[in-house]
C-alpha cells in the first residue's frame, strides 16, 4: 500500500471511525428489519428454524439412537451449541456475497468498506440475542438454572464473533476475485459442523485426540459453554486442552484469522469497486 495515493477509500483512518460505527450500526439495523419485512410472525420464524432442527436432532439422537442418556441436559446443550454454531455459519456465509450484493453502493459512494462485513456480524449478533432469549426460557424450563457461569457467555460469544468477523472478511474479499469461494465455504461449514461438538459433546472424543480437537476455536468455545452454561460437572476447556496456557492455541488461531482477514480486507478495500 503506497502512502502516495491516500484516498477516502483507504481502510480505516481514525477520523473515519465514528462514521464507520454509525454506518455499521445503520446497515445492521436495516438488515435486521429487512429480514422481518412482510412477514407477520417475523421474530417467531427466526426461532422456528433452530428449534425445529433441534427437535428433529433431539428425537433422532436420544430416542432413536439412544445417545446421550449419560449426558446431563443433553437437549439444552444441543440447543445452545446449535444456536451458537448457526450464528457462525450465518455470519460467514452471509459475508461471502456481501460485497457483490451491495455493488451499487460500492460503485457510487466512498465509505469505509469494512462496514459491510461488520454490519453482517452485528446483525448476526442481534439475531443471536433474540434466539438466546428463547433458549434461556427452554433451559430454565428443562431445569438448567442460571448460574455465575452464565456470565462467561458474553466472552464466548465475543470470541466466536471475532472468529466469524475474521473469516467473513477473508471470504467477502476473496469472493470478489474467486466465485468458487461460495460452494467451497458451504462444504467447509458442513465439515465444521460435524467437527465441532454440537450433536455430541467433546468429552466423548477419544482421549488421544482430545487436545488437538479442542484446539479448534469453535470446539473450544462450545466445550467451555457446556461447562459454564449447562453442566458444571463437565470439564472446562482448560482441562480439556491440558492446561490453561494451551488456551493460547484456539485464541491465537482466532486472533490470527481475524488479523489475516483485516489485513487482506484493507489491502483489497481501495480496489473493490474496480474488481466487482
Amino acid at each position, binding site marked *: 500500500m503506497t502512502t*502516495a*495515493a*491516500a*484516498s*477516502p*477509500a*483507504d481502510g480505516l483512518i481514525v477520523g473515519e471511525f*465514528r*462514521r464507520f460505527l*454509525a*454506518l455499521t*450500526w*445503520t*446497515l445492521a439495523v*436495516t438488515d435486521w*428489519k*429487512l429480514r422481518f*419485512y412482510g412477514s407477520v410472525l417475523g421474530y417467531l420464524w427466526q426461532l422456528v428454524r433452530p428449534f425445529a432442527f433441534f427437535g428433529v436432532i433431539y428425537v433422532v439422537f436420544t430416542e432413536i439412537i439412544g445417545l446421550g442418556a449419560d449426558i446431563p441436559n443433553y437437549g439444552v446443550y444441543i440447543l445452545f451449541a446449535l444456536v451458537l454454531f448457526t450464528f457462525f455459519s450465518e455470519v460467514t456465509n452471509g459475508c461471502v456475497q456481501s460485497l457483490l450484493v*451491495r455493488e*451499487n*453502493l*460500492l*460503485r*457510487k*459512494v*466512498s*465509505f469505509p468498506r469494512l462496514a459491510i462485513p461488520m454490519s453482517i456480524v452485528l446483525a448476526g449478533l442481534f439475531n443471536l440475542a433474540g434466539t438466546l432469549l428463547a433458549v434461556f426460557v427452554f433451559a430454565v424450563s428443562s431445569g438448567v438454572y442460571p448460574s455465575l457461569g452464565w456470565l462467561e457467555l458474553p466472552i464466548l460469544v465475543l470470541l466466536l464473533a471475532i472468529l466469524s468477523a475474521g473469516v467473513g472478511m477473508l471470504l467477502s474479499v476473496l469472493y470478489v*476475485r*474467486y*466465485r*468458487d469461494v461460495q460452494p467451497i465455504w458451504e462444504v467447509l461449514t458442513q465439515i465444521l459442523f460435524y467437527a465441532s461438538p454440537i450433536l455430541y459433546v467433546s468429552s466423548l472424543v477419544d482421549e488421544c485426540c482430545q487436545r488437538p480437537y479442542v484446539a479448534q476455536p469453535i470446539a473450544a468455545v462450545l466445550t467451555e459453554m457446556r461447562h459454564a452454561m449447562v453442566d458444571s460437572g463437565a470439564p472446562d476447556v482448560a482441562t480439556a486442552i491440558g492446561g490453561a496456557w494451551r488456551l493460547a492455541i484456539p485464541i491465537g488461531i482466532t486472533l490470527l484469522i481475524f488479523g489475516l482477514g483485516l489485513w487482506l480486507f484493507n489491502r483489497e478495500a*481501495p*480496489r473493490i*469497486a*474496480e474488481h466487482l
Partner: protein
Amino acid sequence: MHAEPAVIVDDISKTFRLPHQQYHTLKERVLHPGRARTYEEFHALRNVSMAIEEGEFFGIVGRNGSGKSTLLKCLAGIYRPDRGRVDVRGRLSPFIELGVGFNPELPARDNVVINAVMMGLSRAEARRRFDEVVAFAELEEFVDLKLKNYSSGMAVRLGFAVATRIDADVLLVDEVLAVGDASFQQKCFEVFRQMKADGKTILLVSHDMGLIEHFADRAMLIERGDVLATGDPHEIGLQYNQVNFGELVHDLPAYDGEGAHRAVEIAGCWIEVGGERVTDLPHGEQLEILTELRFHQAIVDPVFALTLRNDAGHTVFATSTQWMDSATGRFEAGEVATMRVGVAAWFAASRYRATPSVARAGSGADTIDLREDAASFILHSTRSTGGVLDVPHTLEIDRAGVSAQ
C-alpha cells in the same frame, strides 16, 4: 482569495487491466495458470492534475470513454489512482451514474438515512434531514414505498436530493441531466445556483457544453485520459467541439468510390462565419453553408438543395433552387461550383447537420448526389426556450388601466 484549494489532483494516473479472458473460478486458474496473465492495459487517466478553488464551479467535459467518469470516481474515492494524489478538503457528496446507491428492497426512509450516514452524517442528523430531503424531491407521499416501486425519475430525484441536502462542501455530479423531466432539470439548476451562492464547490461532468458554459467558472477538456486544456468554459467549449465534430467539416471522402461517375459530385461541405470555417457559432450569427460541386458531365438547370436538421432529427430549415429560380443554367463537364446558403442562426441551441443535394431538372426527385449530414455545427445559446426556433420577436404586455367601479 488564495486560500487552500478545495480539491487538489496531483498528477494522477489510472490504468485498468482488461484480461483477455476473465478467470473467475479457481479451477480455471489452476488449469490455465499461464493464460490468465495476458491482459491489455487501458490508460483511463494519464498524469491528470488540477486544483479547484473553494466556491468554484468546475466543469469537466469530454467524449464518452475520455476518462471523465474515472476521474470523478478517483475524486470520490471509489477508485484509487495508481499514481498521484487526490486531496479533498471538507465533506464530499458524490452523485454518480444517476444515483447514490439505493437498496431496492428498502423504503425511501431507510435508504435516505443509510446514504446520509455513508456520506458522513450522524444517524440523528440523517434522520433530521430526512423531511427536507423528501420535500425537496417532492416525494412526501411515497416515503414508505420500497425503492423498487419507484419510477426511475423518482429514484433520481431522491438521489439528487440526498446528494445535495447533506451540506457537503464539495459536490460531484455526473451527467445529472441525462434523465429527469424539465421541472427536475430546472430544480437542478436552482440547486446549482444556490450552492454557488453559498460558496460550495461543485464539479460537474457532462457532455452538454451549454450547461457547462452557463454555470462553470472554469472548465477542463479531457480526451483519451489526457487533459487537453483547462480554462475559460467558452474556450473549452470551442475546443470540445473541434474534438467532437472537427472531422465532420473536412472534405468528404469519395462517396462509395463512384463519385467521379456521377454527373455532379458533392465534393465538400462546410460552415463559414465571416469567411472563416467554424464548427460552432453563437445564436443569431449570420452563417453560410458552403457546398463544393464538381461537374463531370454537362447538365442543364440542375436543382440544388440543402436541409438542416437539429439533434432531434427535425428538419428546421430547407431550401432549394427549385423554389426560387429553377433556371440555374448550364454547367459544363469539369466545372467546379460552390453553393452558398446564407442564413441567420435564429435556431435553438443544438447541434445541426446539413445535408446538401443535387438533382436533375424537374421535380427534384431525380437525385444525382446527396450527402447525408455532410457538415455539422453547434449553436450556442445562453437560454433554452424549449422551442425549435428562437427568432427575433417582440413581447409586450399591454395593460388596460384599472377601472374604478
